């Protein structure tokens, strides 16, 4: 470990204590924080599974319009889908750079990921605004309105949380509170969360948007 090891153990900063403890390995030799993230993502599968399932359960059963076809715009959704997909690439590159002991490169990719994520959220805000004001679709308009906004809204919230997390991590890297080596796992775990948010969108995009356009 040599000189670098000194850098690793600097958990004296206030509010930073739990950090080192979380990155500790458990009795299996696996980092606790990573194990916890996979368990959390497992539960998230159930969470989004039920939201998407509910959307389909009520699909086509709205008593009033507008209907999905009336509000969806394939152009805007494709752009934001593409951005989110690309953010997964930058995220993976960021995690990779951190493992390669290149924190500044990692930070660049993390910030790029955050920017792509924020743009995605921006598109969603724009979309929701348009649906609400121009297409007259509110949360309480119909089963479609309720299930659609709940599902995509929760996804957007997850993206927003991810963006905040990414920004915080890049600040920590800048302040050298997060250094490569043992703590690279913290970035890796954030990456897991980010990729998960991306795969949820992969499912929503195909099942909610694209299949709608086939009919």
């Amino acid at each position: 470990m040599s000189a670098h090891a000194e850098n690793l153990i600097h958990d004296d900063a206030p509010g930073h204590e739990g950090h080192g403890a979380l990155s500790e390995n458990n009795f299996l030799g696996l980092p606790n924080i990573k194990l916890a993230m996979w368990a959390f993502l497992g539960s998230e599968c159930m969470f989004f599974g039920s939201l998407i399932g509910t959307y389909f359960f009520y699909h086509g059963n709205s008593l009033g319009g507008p209907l999905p076809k009336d509000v969806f715009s394939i152009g805007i959704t494709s752009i934001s889908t593409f951005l989110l997909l690309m953010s997964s690439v930058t995220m993976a590159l960021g995690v990779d750079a951190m493992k390669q002991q290149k924190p500044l490169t990692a930070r660049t990719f993390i910030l790029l990921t955050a920017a792509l994520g924020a743009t995605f959220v921006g598109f969603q805000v724009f979309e929701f605004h348009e649906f609400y004001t121009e297409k007259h679709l509110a949360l309480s308009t119909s089963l479609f309105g309720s299930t659609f906004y709940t599902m995509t809204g929760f996804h957007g919230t997850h993206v927003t949380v991810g963006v905040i997390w990414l920004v915080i991590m890049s600040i920590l890297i800048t302040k050298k509170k997060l250094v490569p080596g043992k703590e690279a796992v913290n970035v890796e775990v954030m990456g897991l969360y980010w990729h998960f948010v991306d795969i949820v969108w992969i499912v929503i995009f195909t099942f909610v948007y694209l299949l709608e356009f086939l009919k």
Partner: protein
Amino acid sequence: MSHGHEVGTLPHSHKKQYIILGIVLSIVTFIELGIPLMKGSPEIWTAAKELWAPLLIVLSIFKFGAVVGDFMHLRSDFTLYKILFISPLFLAMFSFFAIGSLSVVHFQPFGKGYAITAQDLSDGYVPPTVGGGAEPPWADDKFEAAFVDAQKGGFAKGKETFTTSCANCHRADGGGMPGLGVNLTDVCYKHGGKIAALYTTISKGVSGTAMPAWQTSMDSEKLRQVAYYVHSLKGLNVAGGRDCEGPKE
């Protein structure tokens, strides 16, 4: 699996793989987007009509697998992670399909509008009032046929029925005629103004008066449509209508 913590033995970089995978995923996304656009060329579209949806699903499973397997490294990571993630994923898919099959039994999902039945009406179900006033902002020709029938066209048909079967007693605008049908555009109803009550009055008629029982000559759908229409007349108070009869609602 190698989290090389030692300086000097850095883990192998996956940079190239990530970039290649990113390009592959972009191409897949473009293919996905192209599929709905195929509708533009009807020959290709209809040639493989049944294939498009499964193809989209397969492509999305591929993307899902690529991100989880390679970006998230699950493919080469510890089994415990796999168990933690994949078992709830299957549970989620299972409940998804369970709910899906339930919905087939209870509703008619994927396309058909929810047809309001006589049972719903007698249970006191009150559908949203459409018609009578201004057209709702979303009422344009983009609507699916089933929906149009249930809501907008349903009213048009109800109105049609009203004009042919009811107008000679209740007047074309529903204002009623002296000695014949009562005013249906006020807020007074002898037999109830809720949709369920209207449906019942129209189907069973009012014995001892001129109001016939329409269930002998109309099916439940027609009755439903005309009941909606009558319901939408409530409160219009057309000029020259008959005076209020029965309790106000």
